[in-house]
């Protein structure tokens, strides 16, 4: 990694999700030098785990393909995967950054032929599928993974599996001796786009995510629709593999709640509306959806999608925060207790699957960014003079949908460019 060249005129983009990719590519296509670091083995981030986007119901991988092509074609971008920023110090135009590079145990010779995966036996929870599925100890994160290069799970290093992987590789790409490395870079500006993690549903105790099989999260629901996902593209009840026909969507699961995340996560309303259409897609008229909400936040022109779903006779809206869920032990169904606040009707509704619309927990880390960086109580990076040339982008700046994240990332790229252009001016 000694070949990574960075100067005060280089822009560091942290996070290879849709926001980081956008910021990096847009800056690079303005002719700027960019280093893009991603903690995981592939770029693509959270959107790579989605089935469709609202409101167009188009496929995220389609946009990723374009972004990857722009990325491959652009010589101004240096991509580092399995790279984690551990410290940023300094001031605008002059930051020192420490980066920890975890070993992939697979070098650039890899042709993604898959021989190593076939050879290895050990299996682990597949992060890409939120652990709903197993993957091999040697694996390609997804078919869309970029770089298109396999990874060896560190847990098989030192086991016979590691040797099997090495022997299976005809091109000498498996290097079990690879070590962790630390990299020090000097850069002029930092675009921070480390995205979000779905809020831990187990913490929302009344909904029993940790106790009831048929209570799942919205992100897990997305994975079910992937033909190569944990359920082969079919929506099923975890408890018995049956097709759910009466699904409840619970909004603000962990959002707008002082016991959990105080902020509104913005995307969850639209996500649930979108997911009701998945049920339509799979079960036609047989599928009923009920959305339990406080306020439906289908902001601005995409409200017409909300109106469209409202027209669907199979979708019911109940203005109510569900109080608690009890399992019907006989059939694994779930009884939702609460009160419909419109006119006050008490209900105890039985559903065969419950989808928790969990919100976004910002991934902005503690103690990595320079002292004095303004990070608000919701753990988002504010746009503030005091932050020098550290710019939060996408869901590091607020709870944003993909479109606004990409928009915001484009803006962050310009702010970074202003800094490095100023530096260039000074350095001549």
């Amino acid at each position, binding site marked *: 990694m000694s070949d990574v060249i960075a100067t005060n005129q280089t822009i560091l983009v942290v996070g290879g999700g849709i926001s980081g990719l956008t910021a990096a590519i847009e800056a690079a296509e303005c002719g700027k030098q960019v280093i893009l670091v991603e903690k995981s083995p592939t770029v693509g981030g959270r959107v790579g785990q989605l089935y469709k986007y609202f409101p167009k119901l188009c496929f995220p991988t389609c946009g990723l393909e374009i972004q990857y092509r722009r990325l491959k074609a652009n010589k101004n971008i240096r991509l580092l995967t399995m790279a984690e920023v551990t410290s940023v110090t300094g001031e605008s135009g002059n930051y020192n950054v420490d980066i920890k590079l975890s070993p992939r145990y697979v070098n650039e010779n890899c042709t993604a032929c898959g021989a190593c995966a076939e050879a290895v036996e050990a299996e682990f929870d597949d992060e890409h599928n939120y652990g709903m599925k197993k993957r091999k100890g040697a694996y390609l994160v997804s078919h869309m993974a970029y770089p298109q290069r396999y990874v060896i799970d560190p847990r098989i290093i030192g086991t016979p599996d590691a040797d099997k992987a090495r022997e299976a590789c005809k091109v000498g790409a498996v290097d079990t001796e690879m070590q962790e490395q630390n990299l020090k870079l000097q850069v002029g500006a930092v675009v921070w786009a480390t995205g979000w993690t779905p809020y831990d549903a187990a913490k929302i105790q*009344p909904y029993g995510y940790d106790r009831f099989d048929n209570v799942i999260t919205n992100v897990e629901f997305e994975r079910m629709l992937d033909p190569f996902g944990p359920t082969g593209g079919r929506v099923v009840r975890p408890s018995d593999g049956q097709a759910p026909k009466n699904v409840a969507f619970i909004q603000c699961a962990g959002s707008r709640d002082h016991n959990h995340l105080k902020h509104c996560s913005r995307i969850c309303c639209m996500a649930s509306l979108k997911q009701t259409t998945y049920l339509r897609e799979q079960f036609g008229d047989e599928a009923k959806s009920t959305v339990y909400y406080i306020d439906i936040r289908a902001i601005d022109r995409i409200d017409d999608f909300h109106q469209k779903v409202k027209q669907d006779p199979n979708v019911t809206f109940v203005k109510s925060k569900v109080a608690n869920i*009890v399992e019907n032990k006989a059939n694994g169904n779930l009884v939702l207790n609460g009160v419909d606040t419109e006119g006050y009707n008490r209900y105890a509704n039985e559903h065969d699957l419950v989808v928790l619309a969990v919100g976004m927990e910002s991934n902005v880390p503690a103690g990595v960014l320079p002292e004095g960086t303004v990070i608000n109580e919701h753990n988002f990076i504010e746009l503030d003079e005091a932050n020098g040339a550290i710019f939060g982008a996408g869901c590091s700046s607020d709870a944003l949908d993909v479109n606004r994240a990409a928009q915001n990332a484009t803006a962050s790229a310009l702010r970074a460019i202003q800094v490095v252009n100023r530096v260039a001016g000074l350095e001549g």
Partner: protein
Amino acid sequence: MAKREYSFYPGCSSQSKASSANYLKSTKTICEELDIQLNEIPDWNCCAASIGYAGGGELPRMTLSARNIALSQKHNAGQDIVATCAACWLATRETKERLEHDASILDGANQALGEIGIKVESDIPKTRHMVEVLIEDIGYEAIGSKVKRPLDGLKIAGYVGCQTNRPFGIDGESFENPRYLDKMVETLGATPVEKYDKKVSCCGGALMFSEPEKSQALVKDIIEAAYDGGADMIVTPCPVCQMNVEVYQGHINKTYGTKFNIPVVYYSTLMSVAFGRSAKEAALEGQMIRAKKLEDLAK
């Protein structure tokens, strides 16, 4: 293990010949076993519980608990206040927080206390439930090591109820599925009822007196769920829960044609038996519905 001392607030119901006298008795027994010394707060008074609000407004209620706190500071300086009754614990702990965060309450309470020449000093002692002492200061392991008579073969529903669970609860436990009674039951060699989904449902509390039918309906579900889980008995950390769930089973049977007859015991009773103490020391005679299986063990 060195002797542990606490400033003890027994509460009205655990006085001799009061509704939870048996609770106090068995608590004393386990304290002997576990080398705990309870120093009763001299001349403690009622906490007004959660039903005192109609007669006493905010300040009078707070003042009552403030008196106990002040007396504890004066006579049991430096000791945590420990209560066995959920209501006593909750009222005192709530008062502690209001006194600490609401200057006008603190001032008002101290004016009132001034009438009897005492006042609440700064740094109010921690106010804890006996269960917290057992879990945090003693620990399941130490408790397990005291077991001489494992409660083999007993299946027990851990009914936590409300006020030892909300709003404060026991550290590290969740509101909806606290596990500490189950862990306790396991520690004592018995089997807890898993997925006991009435575990934290309300028994009606004080409304058992004013709204008996409504409250008994709640109790019915609590008992039913315990039977569904195959429980031999129910264990609880709260006097109100114990009384409400135990003593009205006859009435409930009349109203609903059920055949309930399930013992409802305190964790302290279970522990006393498991620790090899006599039926008397475990206060088993205090069971309106005899806990036969425990009596047999205690023989």
